[in-house]
């Protein structure tokens, strides 16, 4: 008897959850829900008060103004962004996401809005000079889980040992402590991390693979895609990207220009 009432409570509870879940998905006149991981300064980050800010946040806000829709920033871990988009929890992804063929199989992308590439953060003691040097037994590569660096290392640098880490800071630490030969990440992050650990690391900034960032969308959402492409075109012609670059990345912009490394926007 005790067991039976327990089971019925359990069934009732679970059914209740299901009904609740279906009831809340329907809502009218929706705001634009933009997914991003707020841990990639200066693109996606939070200000000291905990409010989202950064290049991508400003970009999303400008997009919202053009579409006349309220913008809601959803902070989601990077490798959870695509599942969130696919299950309808968010409407688009603006999270410094590279448009790759692999990702294009499951989501659609807008026109690219930014050009960058993969670079190397190398330990000071390590003999590694290029990405090709890493593809050898005995080499250890640190990557952040779910990034293009992770994908590149697991498909193109198979001879090396791969350390898959959750956090960018942990991957940098692996290199700084000499536990890994190199950390593969985009050139801007590599530049910034190298400055922070100048004694223990050096940077190989010239991208060995070029990449472009784009807004991620559901494949069926062609209307939003056209709206976003129009917006990006207009935003660029109005000099919006240049302004964001000057606001958030003045030093990096100058440094990359000086080294003649393709930079952004």
């Amino acid at each position, binding site marked *: 008897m005790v*067991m039976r009432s327990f089971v019925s409570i359990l069934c009732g509870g*679970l059914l209740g959850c*299901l009904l609740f879940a279906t009831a809340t998905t329907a809502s009218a006149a929706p705001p634009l829900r933009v997914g991003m991981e707020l841990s990639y300064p200066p693109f996606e980050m939070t200000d000291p008060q905990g409010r989202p800010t950064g290049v991508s946040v400003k970009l999303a806000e400008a997009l919202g103004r053009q579409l006349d829709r309220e913008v809601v920033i959803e902070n989601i871990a990077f490798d959870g962004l695509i599942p969130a988009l696919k299950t309808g929890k968010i409407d688009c992804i603006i999270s410094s996401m590279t448009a790759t063929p692999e990702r294009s199989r*499951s989501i659609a992308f807008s026109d690219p809005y930014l050009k960058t590439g993969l670079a190397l953060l190398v330990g000071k003691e390590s003999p590694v000079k290029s990405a090709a040097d890493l593809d050898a037994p005995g080499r250890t590569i640190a990557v952040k889980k779910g990034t293009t660096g992770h994908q590149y290392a697991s498909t193109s640098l198979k001879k090396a040992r791969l350390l*898959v880490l959750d956090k960018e800071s942990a991957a940098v630490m692996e290199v700084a402590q000499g536990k890994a030969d190199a950390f593969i990440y985009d050139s801007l992050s590599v530049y910034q991390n190298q400055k922070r650990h100048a004694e223990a690391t050096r940077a190989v900034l010239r991208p060995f693979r070029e990449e472009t960032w784009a807004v991620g969308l559901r494949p069926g959402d062609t209307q939003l895609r056209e709206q976003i492409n129009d917006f990006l075109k207009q935003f660029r012609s109005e000099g919006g990207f240049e302004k964001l670059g000057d606001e958030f990345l003045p030093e990096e912009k100058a440094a990359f220009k000086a080294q003649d490394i393709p930079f952004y926007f």
Partner: protein
Amino acid sequence: MPRWLAHTIVVILFAALIALAFSRVDYAWNWAGVWEYRQKFLQGFGVTVALSLASLVASTLIGIVAAVLLGSKNVMLEAVGRVYVELIRGTPLLVQLLLGFYVVASAVGLENRYVVGVLVLALFSGAYMAEIFRGGLAAIPQTQRDSARAIGLTPWQSLRLVILPQAVRLVLPAVAGQFVSLIKDSSLLSVIAVSEFTLAAQEVNSFTYSTLESYLPLAAGYLLLTLPLSALSRLLERRYRYEM
């Protein structure tokens, strides 16, 4: 109603509810993508089994030593045990792993992340084990020890024949629960890039973008490890009941 029948009915009801939940979610399944990475799952599962076994043994040993320290009449020894238990139980395993690997292990030149992972996990679980063991021993009434001495048993005999058989029965359910926690906590080792079962599933997820298809096998795999443990604990409990 026999027990096995009740279990079967509840399991079927649960499965039906979960199936109903899935049928209501509009989700495009992609098992083929995940199947390509089956080798990764198997490797990760193997690593998790090995890590869990090693830390199970080590945490039991650490727990016994710490329980002895906690019960010691020497205040210094008791203090060592107490500080260890409170420090470990009061801080997150995540912090212990990061500090343990990037600071402590680096300082002493221990570079193997698997060894460090097992050690930290064993120390973490050992603190809980220590309290379980101490509680089990403290629960045996003093009259038992007095009676054992009265019938002429040596201290070692009284421990082996009187105290331990009763204490083991008392602590078994809690120890089994702690072992189950330990197996699941081993998933946190992924933060120091130990490529265990959970990290394998997360990687497959980030390659295939098939979240549920990556994580459902994970749940099944952990059950495969923890259910036999629970069964074994119940079996032992029954055996020790008759040895009293």
